[in-house]
């Protein structure tokens, strides 16, 4: 009986420590809701989910790399490049200062989407090659790619006739497709529908395909996976290319969501995506993570962002709070790893 009592108290403290972050975030959200009862209105919730959608799709790509025990610091800048390509091709044909005056008729939206995916896949292939073939650490190669992508983005935006200016005045059909609610799901914004589609596809890839199973095997123990007959380099490349496709889709949607692409588009999105993944239980030690976890993490982070903004908190303090949340999430993950060892 004594032993059982002791066990119960130990489990309770373990439980509190493992879920400390969720408790604080939950309390914070409840606090905001008490301070302003309109916070939890349906329209606000849809707004938060729509804002979280593009970052959610980005996080689905980054999560694969974290499961491989790596990361991607270039995701945000790569997204910026894809968004610039999409926006430049989908500017209104009546806008005099558009980037491509030779486009006189609205083009099929699949073309910019495809080009955005192609650009993002190219950058991700570079990251994947560095990690899979050159055995570089994901931090280093993605840091380099981040700078390259930023340089390319600045050059592209600066190549406009009038010099560096935001790529805006987008086609109304494009804006309606991204920001509308016309996909036949009632009040659900199209962005949320796109996120759900991407999440379902990625759930299938992670759980039902050889690539997904190999990804977890490589993330858990690379050497063991190689000895078991898994082609490590090929599968790492596969994960990076899938992430590139997701970045491309996210970039296409983000350009339509913000309706104006500048050199700062995508700045810090990678950090939001990584912190969303870590909050959602994707472990930096590799081999651990779920798609619902990633989605929950991204939505929680967006709720925090929104609630801090809603409360009118100083933006500089918002950075400090977000930074502390990331460190706490990683510390809890490390503790779990040490306790298991």
């Amino acid at each position: 009986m004594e032993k059982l009592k002791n066990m119960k108290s130990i489990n309770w403290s373990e439980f509190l420590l493992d879920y400390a972050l969720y408790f604080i975030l939950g309390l914070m959200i409840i606090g905001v809701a008490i301070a302003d009862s309109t916070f939890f209105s349906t329209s606000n919730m849809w707004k938060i989910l729509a804002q979280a959608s593009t970052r959610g799709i980005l996080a689905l790509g980054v999560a694969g790399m974290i499961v491989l025990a790596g990361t991607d610091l270039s995701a945000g800048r790569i997204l910026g490049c894809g968004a610039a390509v999409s926006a430049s091709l989908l500017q209104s044909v009546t806008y005099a200062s558009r980037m491509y005056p030779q486009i006189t008729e609205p083009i099929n939206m699949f073309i910019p989407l495809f080009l955005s995916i192609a650009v993002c896949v190219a950058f991700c292939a570079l990251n994947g090659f560095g990690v899979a073939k050159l055995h570089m650490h994901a931090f280093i190669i993605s840091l380099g790619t981040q700078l390259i992508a930023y340089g390319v983005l600045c050059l592209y935006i600066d190549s406009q006739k009038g010099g560096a200016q935001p790529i805006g005045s987008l086609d109304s059909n494009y804006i309606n497709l991204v920001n509308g609610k016309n996909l036949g799901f009632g009040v659900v914004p199209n962005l949320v529908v796109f996120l759900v589609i991407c999440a379902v596809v990625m759930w299938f890839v992670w759980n039902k395909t050889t690539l997904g199973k190999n990804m977890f095997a490589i993330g858990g123990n690379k050497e063991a996976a190689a000895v078991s007959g898994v082609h490590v380099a090929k599968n790492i490349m596969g994960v990076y290319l899938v992430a590139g496709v997701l970045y491309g889709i996210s970039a296409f949607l983000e350009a339509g969501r913000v309706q104006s692409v500048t050199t700062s588009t995508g700045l810090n999105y990678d950090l939001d995506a990584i912190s969303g993944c870590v909050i959602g239980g994707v472990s930096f030690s590799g081999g651990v993570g779920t798609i619902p976890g990633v989605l929950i993490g991204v939505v929680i982070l967006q709720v925090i962002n929104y609630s801090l903004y809603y409360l009118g908190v100083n933006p500089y303090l918002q950075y400090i709070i977000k930074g502390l949340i990331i460190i706490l999430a990683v510390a809890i993950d490390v503790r779990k790893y040490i306790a298991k060892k």
Partner: protein
Amino acid sequence: MEQEKTETFENLSHEELMEKAKKLEEKEKGIEKKERELSVLEASITASKHNLYDKINVSVKTMNIFIGVLVVLLVLAIVVAIVYK
């Protein structure tokens, strides 16, 4: 099948049986050697996990203190952010 085998062994001379036994012993030794090699390989594989957290050499107690400090800091930051907005 087993009967056939017994019959075959019965037909063998003492020298032939000794030779067969020797061969079997050699085979057994070979298998043992292979098993030893495999266990060494297995140990090297399980020990060669080089992930991000492997180099962290702290106790669970230290991590608990670190998490506690972080929680306090986070709560403080939120309170400060709400009070001084």
